[in-house]
């Protein structure tokens, strides 16, 4: 569905952000894009949506070059950016203005999402708090029913009940035909939704695996004495003990700890990558 090949991009001369970056994403999944601040998560998402253009290489989405921004492409992709602007109009007028660009827009679904998120439907968008605006935008994004849905830090600014509602609406939105890409720092908000992990670091994609493959090959556990564990690939020690990653020797079914995996891949990349090769 998304096919990025040898992508090169820089905002400034001699300071490349991406260097021959490759990434393939398929429909039917929710991808979690993880990376440090400044690693290029938002930039990569904007490349997919056709808001930034490659310096070299290609970014193809649904068979279209996203940089060409063809209408047939734009009506099947929606990006919820981290920072956004909403005009000084009512929710109703917003829908009337923007929904016609999306042929599969479901207005009934939109208003039921708003209800789910507890957003008053006849308020001016500019009179809303950041979190409320974000929920309007997320509701709109889901209602467009585009084949590709990209969200940059969607849980930022959401209050505690909204995070649970967000997980419910995303779980309901998944389908075989849809590719959902979410970048996030708050992995704990979404770790049961994300089914594939993509880690970006040092100008490249350094890790891309299904959660199922990860837990088939690695074990995540907490031990009180690290000496008792064998084959530790990464450990994080705190008062409660040591949370560790080891090779999954048998058929353990541990729960993935995405924060731990992220830190492990960044600091101890080679031995972990070898396990997946």
């Amino acid at each position, binding site marked *: 569905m998304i096919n990025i090949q040898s992508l090169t991009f820089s905002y400034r001369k001699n300071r490349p952000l991406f260097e021959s970056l490759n990434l393939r994403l398929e429909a*039917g999944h929710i991808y979690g894009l993880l990376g440090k601040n400044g690693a290029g998560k938002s930039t990569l998402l904007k490349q997919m949506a056709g808001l930034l253009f490659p310096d070299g290489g290609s970014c193809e989405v649904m068979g279209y070059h996203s940089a060409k921004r063809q209408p047939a492409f734009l009506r099947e992709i929606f990006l919820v950016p981290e920072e956004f602007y909403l005009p000084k109009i009512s929710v109703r007028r917003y829908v009337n203005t923007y929904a016609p660009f999306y042929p599969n827009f479901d207005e009934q679904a939109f208003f039921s999402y708003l209800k789910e998120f507890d957003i008053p439907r006849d308020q001016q968008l500019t009179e809303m708090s950041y979190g409320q605006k974000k929920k309007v935008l997320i509701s709109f994004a889901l209602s467009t029913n585009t084949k590709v849905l990209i969200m940059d830090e969607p849980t930022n600014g959401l209050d505690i009940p909204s995070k649970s509602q967000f997980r*419910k609406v995303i779980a309901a939105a998944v389908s075989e035909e849809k590719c959902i890409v979410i970048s996030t720092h708050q992995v704990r908000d979404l770790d*049961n939704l994300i089914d594939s992990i993509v880690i970006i670091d040092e100008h490249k994609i350094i890790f891309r695996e299904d959660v199922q493959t990860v837990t088939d090959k690695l074990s995540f556990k907490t031990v009180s004495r690290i000496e008792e564990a064998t084959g530790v690939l990464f450990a994080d020690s705190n008062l409660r003990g040591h949370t560790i990653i080891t090779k999954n020797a048998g058929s353990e079914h541990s729960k993935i700890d995405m924060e731990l995996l992220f830190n492990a891949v960044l600091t101890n990349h080679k031995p972990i990558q070898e396990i997946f090769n």
Partner: protein
Amino acid sequence: MEFKDTQAIYVQIADYISEQVLLNKWQPEERIPSVRELAVSLEVNPNTVMRTCELLQQQEIIYNKRGIGYFISPDAVKKIKQFKKEAFIHNELPSLFRNMYLLDVDLDELKPHFEKFKKSNFN
């Protein structure tokens, strides 16, 4: 449902469904909620619930009626007890046995405790 950090989510969901059956909330031959409904209410990826259903189907606790959904098997209770028993013997007994050995506790010595426990909890 509150998930623990120790076990894969799909296994925890399988345990949850099995528990509903043991508690008689879902009866044999009853249709269980759809994959999508379960995913939404548990706030997890539908693919995870699919994996749970594959596991439960393989254990013959649920079965699939094409185009309708998953149903609880007629002998689901028996199957669940059988799997839970195996898991108990495999996972929990070793640490109990270890303590019994370290503390010189004989099996017969435990019997009255077990009888008392059953009386006060399940009568």
